[in-house]
């Protein structure tokens, strides 16, 4: 068994009604790499990541973490495997401040066992430290998330994910709603996370992002894996070619399949 893969997904299939969203898809994530997951709409990228994060359960296939087979049936299973998904729609409570979001469900408390009192001092101090360590430009962990820009919210979501030792981060189009400058700041953060030993799968429509910071890029089309490429060996055109035309080239059959399925 290849032990330098931190995540292996083998032969993953998923069907929604009459639509085969994923068809025998394999994925290998190396420890400490950024793997881009690209493909057109409805290619199956999000479905594959939802299976890894426990939001969906696969119809068939295996998931191995550090070479050992695991069963991921809900988000809690995924979390106990060190997997944390950062959703496109964020999963933050906008009405709470940064620290409360980071620690939601895992607060530091003291005092009464039946009514736990928040240790706010500790939570604010650790949040501030975390933001500083990740070079996140947010002036105070006491700020409410609703007052923040899209990029700042993405960074809070990332901080929340790694605050509790998630080693494997799944990010679903984190830069999609951001301006150029904010997107670049976020990409730098993702790179820093990789350099800090985290393994990242980055779903994105923006291939240049992956070419800028990724190690490898995997292409999905019509619920099938088209290839996995080393970023250092390919250019934008190669990846785009694979996204648009697939492994087998432009065949009318594959195009038709694409419109039937969704991701």
């Amino acid at each position, binding site marked *: 068994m290849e032990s330098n893969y931190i995540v292996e997904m083998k032969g993953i299939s998923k069907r929604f009604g009459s639509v085969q969203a994923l068809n025998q898809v394999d994925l290998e994530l190396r420890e400490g790499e950024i793997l881009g997951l690209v493909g057109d709409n409805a290619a199956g990228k999000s479905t594959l990541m939802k299976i890894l994060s426990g939001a969906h359960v696969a119809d068939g296939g295996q998931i191995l973490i550090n070479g050992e087979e695991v069963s991921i049936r809900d988000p809690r299973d995924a979390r106990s495997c060190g997997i944390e998904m950062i959703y496109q729609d964020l*999963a933050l409570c906008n*009405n709470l401040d940064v620290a409360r979001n980071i620690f*939601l469900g895992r607060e530091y408390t003291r005092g009464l066992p039946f009514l736990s009192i928040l240790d706010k001092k500790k939570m604010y101090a650790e949040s501030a430290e975390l933001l500083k360590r990740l070079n996140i430009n947010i002036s105070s962990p006491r700020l409410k998330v609703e007052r923040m820009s899209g990029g700042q919210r993405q960074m809070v979501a990332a901080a929340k994910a790694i605050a509790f030792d998630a080693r494997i981060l799944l990010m679903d189009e984190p830069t999609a709603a951001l*301006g150029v400058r904010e997107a670049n700041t976020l990409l730098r953060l993702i790179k820093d996370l990789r350099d800090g030993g985290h393994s990242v799968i980055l779903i994105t429509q923006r291939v240049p992002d992956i070419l800028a910071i990724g190690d490898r890029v995997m292409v999905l089309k019509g619920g099938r894996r088209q290839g996995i490429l080393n970023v250092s060996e390919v250019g934008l055109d190669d990846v785009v070619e694979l996204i*648009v035309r697939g492994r087998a080239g432009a065949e009318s059959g594959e195009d038709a399949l694409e419109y039937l399925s969704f991701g």
Partner: protein
Amino acid sequence: MADNPTPQEQPTAEAASPQPPESPPARWGERLQWIIEYRAFVLLGLALTYAVLFVPFFATERNITQMTTQFSIDGIISIGLTILMIAWGIDLGVGATLALAGVVFALSQDLGVPAAALLGILAGAGVGIVNGFVVTRMKVNFFIATLSTMVAVKGLTFIISDETTIYGHAEGFGWMGSAKLGLFEFPALAFFGIGIIAHLIMTQTSLGTYWYAIGGNSDASHRAGLNVKRLFALSFVVAGLCSGIAGVLLASRAVSANPGVGRDTALFAISATVIGGTSLFGGVGNVLGAVAGVMFLGVVRNSLNLLGVSAYWQWVIQGVILVSVVVSDVYMNRRRRTA
């Protein structure tokens, strides 16, 4: 999803996409937001100033004592509703629960007043448990659910009371409603005490944070591992519990339990809560604001009475106040959504 059709087009699409606003909102906007958030204190200050200066007999010891007791009984319900509404629920049947608790208290008075009071309060909490169960387990919309239990509870109250007022005869039945410390009677002290406890729970404990969280974004709370259903159900129990306490206090004060009380309770309690800065859209609100909202409405109601304004005009005035507050809440919610 209308994402970019081909990767080649992305650079232009990116340049064309609007930038999120990075600068904070304008100063006047912030100030307006602050005023709206703490509107209850501003309104209370204005109403108090007017009442003290222009309303005859308002600033007398007798009137202050009576007025505080009056608004406190409904006010306790407002506090429970504030927590429920922060968790993005509402209970339209608080008035029926209030009546049920009073009747249960009076019916069981021969067990001794403390035990009877406890039973009355538990009856209120029991209605909350039923509401929580129907809403979270049977997935009924909370408006429909609490409206239905309200009707059932009303019927039950009339059945067990045999449609008559039950008088208090046990030793100490009326103590809770009339014991006095300084200017304030026991219901007022209970209202302020419960307000402080609820405020501390909402701001200092993980439970309070969870209620804000599920009201703000229940999906995110679920993903963070919170038991959203149980927390939501518990907020209904809190509202029921507070209605139960209010019902017992009301019966003790009147030294009798009338099965027909509480018809205007929900209107007053919800109005006060919303005036106090709690949003109808969940996740936003605070207990101290609700306390101020209760006091504001109490002062207005009392002043109108002292000025001899007819009950019908009082309804009109309360309705206008409620509408303007709801409009400001809708406006604030739109700002929050687009921020």
